[in-house]
């Protein structure tokens, strides 16, 4: 991959927090990866796995203890890097006294954009996220979903090359999640060539949106690969439901054919054959299982 095709480069980054006078906690441990331009990348991991810490280091909110991060070739701590970024925090909060349109104008002004440009763009984006009708209402009265949509709109005001979304679906009801998921898809189509990097612990969201998946656990980057590659590594499994017997699971098509032949020869009644759907849940569960086995072997 050419350097010009990489939007975010993370090299041997670690972050240690002081948790007490004499105690420290390493939240991110020696993480390295590169994010290619124009892709949608999902950063997965359980709570406390270091996802948000990593995103905040990319945004320059946190200083890495070790390593380097660059955004579009600029150091992440610098101002220049943030010209290319649009950011949606995990729990977006706006000044209560601002109206939706005023908030858009405020954040647009921070990009040093001309007022006329911001004004036009603000209207377009409020339309895109479905908030045009409440443009002149105070954010104070907005629901969580509306705040989330407004936060997405403000992240697009500069037509960013990179969008960083921290848990964009967190705390939303199922309808709200579908709405935001569709909005992200819409944004990706609208901003061609833009990279979307988002964290989540909901596998379904990542599976539906992302071309790349990064898995973090306990501060370590355990996997970084294309979603396709991760899913194809998942063996195709089948469940065979038999009369008066428990369901049997086979690990390959060959095994399925052989088992079915045997069962038919034995005149057993086959009720159904269910293929396992290839999904991230299985893939990541297996990844984690193999990692745990390897760790136990090392300890042993």
């Amino acid at each position, binding site marked *: 991959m050419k350097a010009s095709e990489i939007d975010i480069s993370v090299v041997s980054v670690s972050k240690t927090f002081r948790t007490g006078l004499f105690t420290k906690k390493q939240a991110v441990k020696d993480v390295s990866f590169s994010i290619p331009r124009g892709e949608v990348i999902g950063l997965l991991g359980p709570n406390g796995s270091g996802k948000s810490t990593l995103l*905040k280091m990319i*945004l320059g909110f*946190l200083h890495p203890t070790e390593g380097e991060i660059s955004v579009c070739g600029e150091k992440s701590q610098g*101002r220049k890097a943030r010209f290319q970024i649009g950011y949606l925090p995990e729990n*977006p*909060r706006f*000044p209560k*006294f601002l109206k939706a349109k005023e908030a858009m104008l405020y954040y647009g002004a921070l990009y*040093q954009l001309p007022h006329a440009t911001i004004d036009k763009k603000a209207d377009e984006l409020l339309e895109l996220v479905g908030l045009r009708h409440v443009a002149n209402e105070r954010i104070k009265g907005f629901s969580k979903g509306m705040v989330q949509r407004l936060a997405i709109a403000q992240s697009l005001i500069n037509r960013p090359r990179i969008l960083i979304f921290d848990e964009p679906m967190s705390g939303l009801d199922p309808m709200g999640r579908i709405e935001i998921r569709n909005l992200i898809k819409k944004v990706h189509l609208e901003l061609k060539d833009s990279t979307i990097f988002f964290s989540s612990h909901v596998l379904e969201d990542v599976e539906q949106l992302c071309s790349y998946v990064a898995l973090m656990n306990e501060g370590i980057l355990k996997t970084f690969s294309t979603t396709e590659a991760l899913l194809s590594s998942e063996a195709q499994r089948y469940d065979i439901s038999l009369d008066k017997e428990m369901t049997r699971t086979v690990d390959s098509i060959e095994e399925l054919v052989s088992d079915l032949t045997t069962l038919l020869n034995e005149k057993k009644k086959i009720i159904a054959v269910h293929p396992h759907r290839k999904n991230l849940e299985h893939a990541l569960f297996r990844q984690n299982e193999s990692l745990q086995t390897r760790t136990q072997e090392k300890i042993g």
Partner: protein
Amino acid sequence: MKALTSITMTAIRELLYERVFYILIAFSAVALVLSYLLGQLTYTEQNKLTLDFMLGGIELSMVLFSIFMGISLFQRELVLGTVALVLSKPISRGTFLIGKFLGQLVVQMALIACMSVLAYAMGGAQVGTAAVFQFFIATALKISILTSITYLFAVNTGAIISALGTFLLYTLGHLIENVTLSIKDPEQIVLWKWIQFFVPSFESLNLKNLVSYNVLIPWHEVGVLMVYGLFMTGIYLSLAVFCFNERDIPT
């Protein structure tokens, strides 16, 4: 510059939206009325004492305003996480901090001006406008230094320690010259001289007594005070920006 103006204007609006702002305004009004009534109770030099009390009331309310609004305006952004949306934009942390500071200062300057005019109208008829103007400048400088100290504390510590630390430095700034003069031990004098170097001399900006006796200080001295006040504000604000740049913002 556009970003700085935008942050300053938003900070002004934020202040005007705050409930604490109106509580402090009410406190200032009560302080002014009480000062006026207290002055009226005296038999001798009634006008001078009335004005003296009222100017004292202005100063006290502005000190409280500086500390509480400074902490509220800056720290709440960090606590609530609204800072995340601002700092993810291409602005420096310094721009954000200075924008907030300027917003607060503009509101406070307007309040000091209004209250000075009120004090002049209610108790200072025998005092010239020049003296009241000098009081306005000195108080504005004092408040500017104090607000920058509040921001320095607010960047580094929590709300309570920020308030206590700023108030301690304010008190020390009023007492330090007298303390240094009263010490006899040469070693301790050196120590206190060093402390004096870091603690702003708020007492030298205290023109309250002079104003109530209609004593004007020479204008070139006002100029020196302005340079001093702006220099100290610059020092403390630069330190606040430096610390803000160095710290992590967990949001």
